[in-house]
């Protein structure tokens, strides 16, 4: 049995993986949350390994999947500042469960490690060099997911897709350009706030508004909350809004605006990443469930028709397995696959065993 932790402040998501599948849970991350989980685990059986997702491993943690050592814990402490709310939860979970489950294997799953070797001209911001040296640069994100998608698309195409644009459609959407298994660009920056807008986060905006808000008397913590939790789809829709609400056309003016802005941002991001790659062998869209994103994928296909993309009209009438949704003569193949974060994380955990076996 594998126990997994994936912080999503103000909550901690956790999952229990058995042979039969995964149970996903979440608790409010306030005093006593660890005990609550322990109570839920009571009688579930022996925990063999525990995985902890770290959302930003900074410059210190460069392995995507690795057993946790004393040294890892020290590095983790130094990473907290980069993404305090998320990383402190990961650290707290590590400390607690390593102590209560001393015999289990403890594994850190780092979401930025995939991007640890981004070339400096992609990684850096054009700010004074001293700040870049302090680690204020782009870290990318969602690396575990993009690495998983890369592997699946290799299986699916028999290694023919050397350059892909990996497009995650979700409440936190983001894109990565990958060549030969290595990322060459990402829409995620220093944090996930950069890039495509999320359900509640603003995405790329002109940051001078921050100074105007400050001058108008807003505190930085209020500004942070405004941009991270009261923006994105919801701010455009004028009401709470998730990806599912904007995947289909709507007559509601706010939802319609959110949908148009979102589609436009995805189109522009794909163009930018194609320029970074000098074209791609495949576009891969993933999100859950895949059937739901098809109307959006069709619209995207129309917007990108100039690249020779043609989506099969009958594609994905039935959901399920990853598949090519473009026609045989589409000059840029398009794939859609369902994305199950818990299955992906379980796969990442297992990759450690595979690695071990290979080295044996």
């Amino acid at each position, binding site marked *: 049995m594998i126990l997994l932790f994936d912080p999503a402040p103000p909550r901690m998501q956790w999952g229990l993986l058995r042979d039969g599948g995964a149970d996903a849970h979440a608790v409010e991350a306030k005093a006593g949350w660890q005990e609550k989980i322990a109570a839920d685990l009571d009688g579930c059986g022996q925990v063999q390994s525990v995985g902890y997702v770290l959302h930003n491993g900074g410059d210190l943690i460069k392995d995507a999947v690795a057993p946790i050592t004393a040294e890892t814990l020290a590095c983790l402490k130094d990473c907290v500042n980069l993404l305090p709310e998320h990383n402190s939860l990961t650290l707290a979970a590590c400390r607690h469960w390593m102590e209560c489950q001393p015999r289990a294997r403890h594994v850190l799953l780092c979401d930025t490690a995939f991007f640890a070797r981004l070339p400096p001209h992609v990684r850096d911001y054009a700010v004074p060099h001293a700040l870049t040296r302090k680690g204020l640069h782009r870290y990318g994100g969602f690396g575990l997911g993009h690495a998983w998608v890369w592997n699946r698309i290799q299986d699916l195409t028999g290694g023919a897709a050397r350059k892909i644009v990996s497009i995650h459609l979700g409440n936190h959407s983001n894109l990565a350009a990958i060549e030969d298994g290595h990322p060459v660009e990402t829409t995620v920056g220093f944090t996930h706030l950069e890039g495509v807008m999320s359900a509640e986060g603003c995405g790329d905006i002109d940051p001078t508004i921050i100074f105007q808000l400050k001058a108008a008397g807003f505190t930085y913590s209020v500004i942070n909350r*405004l941009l991270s939790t009261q923006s994105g789809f919801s701010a455009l829709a004028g009401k709470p809004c998730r990806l599912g609400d904007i995947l289909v056309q709507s007559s509601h003016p706010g939802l319609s605006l959110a949908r148009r802005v979102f589609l436009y941002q995805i189109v522009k991001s794909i163009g930018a*990443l194609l320029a970074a790659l000098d074209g791609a062998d495949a576009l891969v869209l993933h999100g859950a469930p895949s059937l739901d994103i098809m109307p959006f994928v069709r619209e995207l296909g129309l917007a990108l028709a100039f690249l020779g993309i043609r989506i099969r009209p009958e594609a994905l009438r039935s959901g399920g397995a990853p598949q090519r949704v473009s026609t045989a003569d589409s000059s840029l193949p398009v794939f859609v696959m369902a994305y199950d974060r818990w299955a992906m994380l379980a796969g990442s955990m297992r990759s450690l065993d595979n690695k071990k076996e290979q080295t044996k």
Partner: protein
Amino acid sequence: MKKEQYILVFNCGSSSLGCKIFRCAETVQAEPVFSAKAHRVGVEGKEASFLQYQADGTSAKVVVPLPDHRTAARRILEYIRARNVPVDMIGHRFVHGGDFFKESAIIDRGVVELLRQCVPLAPIHNPVSLSVIHECRKTMPGLPAYAVFDTAFHATIPDYAYTYPVPQSIRERFHYRKYGFHGLSYKYIARAAPALLGLPADKARMVVCHLGTGGSSVSAIRNGASQDNSMGYSPLMGLLMSTRCGDIDPMLAIYLAVTYDMRPDDLLNMLTEKSGLLGVAGFSSDLRDIIRGVTGQEDDRAGLALRMYVHRLKKYIGSFVAALGGMDALVFTDDIGVTNWLVREKACEAMQWCGLKLDREANRKASLTDATLVSAADSRIKVLSMPTKEELIIAEEGARLMARREAHDSAV
């Protein structure tokens, strides 16, 4: 309107000041009768600032300290007065008109007050333009003057491209949206480039890179109308510029303010005046210095700055090609866009995915003063190096404003 008028036009760039005088009879003549340009105004770098004058086929270059735009304007006005060059009205380029100015305006005391309220919207440019307006009112009192706004051309940007996804109350209170800049330049290129390429202006999809010595932006233009621009609410966003950071994670600004306890003014100043090429390379904000400074060795910060500059430019070209659903022409304009073949070469490298292929030879030999086709014969996309004529657009606006005022006066 009297038979013949002379319109003096001031064009403030972030590190340059252009001045041209146009003769206007029925229409504005495209070639100015007098032109002057102040170079490297207020620039930290190796080379000295200088003024260049051109009139009646003669030219002069004067190396002189130009600590700010007002000094440069005074020098130019003194030169004009000393030579009795006729001037009937003065046009000023004003970068950011915000929501106050949707079109050009004749400057009176009320307008000056509104211009002052626009200052925080473009903290580098607007105060500079305002200082030149004040200098003109002092040195040449009584002359009619008007302001032309860069934001006006971008009024056609659709809502899905200009809306920032923040709460509506913030958007409304701060008039917070993408405005877009370098509109005068794009207005000229949008009509001149298709004419030169034989493309129907009302059908052409163009990506235009306005690469200046100070500020730079990219625009997506369809059917002669702006669809998007890489700059945003302010000219801080978008490409990596000489001292401006361009796109950054908004969270980084908050993080810096909180972690290093930086004052908002200092932080904004750092992002606008000490970042960009200067921030990365450390020794100069001038791309020409940076290119000369590339060593190819480890810790080659000039090389890094150049790669970042080109990479971000390519990303914007790619994103606008996608936004337009394909492109017919890519145009490079303004100082760096026209005079720097290396930047064009690098920006067009590895761009065959969208049908773009450069003629490297033609590109290296492109004219520094005239439009040159630099794409390969078999390139699906035409690539142009084309000097812009912002001042001509400003002069035309002046002639239009005057004609309208006279029509109004005679009607009354």
